[in-house]
């Protein structure tokens, strides 16, 4: 059985979108397997202690062993003008509930998104037993 070990940390989240007031951010993440890719959910907690989604990011894990610096762009779905005004003053916004569909689809261009920032990762990859299956990473 081939193994891939991932060791690292989320170093920072650099906000691109300017919002109202001060806010704090935190990240949820999970792994999706094919060649594994890591999916991020960035949440925003405002001054009223309300949490809302701030963006999503997807990145494949590197296939080379060693240390890697990854930069993952984060985006969020954008609604119509009224919904954006509502989001600006009342909070909330569109959320994606099915991440598995991010890898396929042809009519996805109808979903409008906006970049909200960048997640910087520092991760180390350890590969084991890939050579048993004749796999070479370029």
């Amino acid at each position, binding site marked *: 059985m081939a193994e891939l070990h991932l060791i690292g940390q989320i170093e920072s989240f650099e906000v691109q979108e300017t919002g109202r007031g001060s806010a704090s951010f935190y990240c949820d993440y999970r792994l999706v397997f094919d*060649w594994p890719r890591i999916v991020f959910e960035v949440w925003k907690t405002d001054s009223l202690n309300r949490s809302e989604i701030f963006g999503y990011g997807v990145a494949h894990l590197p296939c080379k062993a060693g240390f890697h610096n990854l930069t993952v762009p984060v985006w969020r779905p*954008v609604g119509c003008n009224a919904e954006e005004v509502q989001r600006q003053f009342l909070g909330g916004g569109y959320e994606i509930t099915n991440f598995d569909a*991010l890898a396929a689809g042809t*009519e996805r*261009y*109808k979903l409008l998104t906006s*970049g909200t920032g960048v997640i910087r990762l520092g991760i180390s990859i350890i590969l084991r037993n890939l050579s048993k299956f*004749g796999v070479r990473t370029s």
Partner: protein
Amino acid sequence: MSYAGSYRFASIGQLDELVMRVSLTRQSTAFNFGHPILPSNASDELSLEFRWQEHIARATNRLFTINQEQLSNNLNLVKKSFSDRRRSFLADCSKRPRSSRDEKSVGPQYVVGSNPERLLLKKCVSMFVLADFTKKIGTETDSENLLDATPLDTGHVLVELHLIEDSYGFQLRVIPDFSDEPYTLRGNSENTYIMSVTVKKPNVLQDLQISFPRPTNEKSVFLSKKMAEMSIAQPKEGQIRTTIFGEIVSAVGFPKNKSLFVLYTASSPHGWSLLGKRAEDELNATFSSISLRYRPPGAAIAKNIAHFGHPFHFNYTTTEPENLPRMHFKVVHFDVNTERYHTLATGSASVGESNLARVPLVRTIPKGFVERLRERFIGGSKCLTGIVVGQKIASDSYTVPEGELIVRVQVLRQSRKYRLEDLLIESQLRLLKSSGQTLSTVQVALSAFQEARLKMIQARQEQKQIVDTEVSNQETRQRSAQRRTR
């Protein structure tokens, strides 16, 4: 019945999870004042639940009736799945004639069907939920006639469902709109019914299921540990399986506040073939992203960047690894107001090694003045065109650089040849490790050889020095002899 409720979807596949519930309640005439009111003393209720997708998928089974046994006593329908009901009904219709019990059934009969004339139109699919309040339906028709009958002729139209395809996706229009209050219906018999329709819409878009929730004060944070097994099958002898995956990270240098999306595809060179279900010329698209002014971390100048982070994945098998596949990109802007697609730039890059590639893009501009004015004011085409691989630039146009695309590409190769090479190295190492005597002998032999080689080199150098000294002595003797002769 002039109102219409509309529900918007991204694609036809999303209708799979759409659940529509039609309930019809018989009401006493004493409480019917001609206004839509809720039944205060509803004695019995009939409900029908079905899934819309099943009607769309199979045209031959779009007409059906509900089990008569359940309707006979005006009892609530057992909540089975619609497919089971339809299957049982069709089985009953095909095997045996209708029983006398069905003929004596009391209460309305539901018929859900479609208008066959409108079904021929691609842009609009209409369906109807019908009820017949008479007792005679079904007694004179067999199953085939019932399936072939026009639904509009068989009963009272309760609900009209129109599935309209437009440029934004699909819109399900329900007439009347039951979102506010139920409606009363007067049947052919003396009974009056109150009808209500609810459409449960679990997802807004098909692939990206999104919702619009309000912010919550509580958010449960949890981390989960997951494991997965990837089965890696060996490719055939002489073949190399190449997996190319990565992300379209962002598009840089396009106009600000413009929604962009990227069409991408891959072309395989000679000796390469694509694996999997994905067709070679299949059009892949990212979602649209608004280009915003942004200064990337570590950069000095702010740029217009549209973030995508869109993953892609291609599987190839090849016998000629010296050739490399190419990925082709096309950045498109969709103008919502004019519903036109503007091609902003195109580009391509060969994919050979894992790296963070910056793909330069070019924009084709016509040379003619009229064509340029047309492109400037009218814009692109009404339909979305794909990527033409290997298309040459026309003689009446030229290209200018327009932005760039940042793509992170990773390449995995798998072959039996690699496995054999690794096995050879492993076996050599294993042999040396397992036989310590052999290892020491080899080491001694190597060290002795090295020592002998070093001694030989030293001897050659010493001999060379001796030869050099002898030559120099002879030269000095010759020079002294020449001086003497002079």
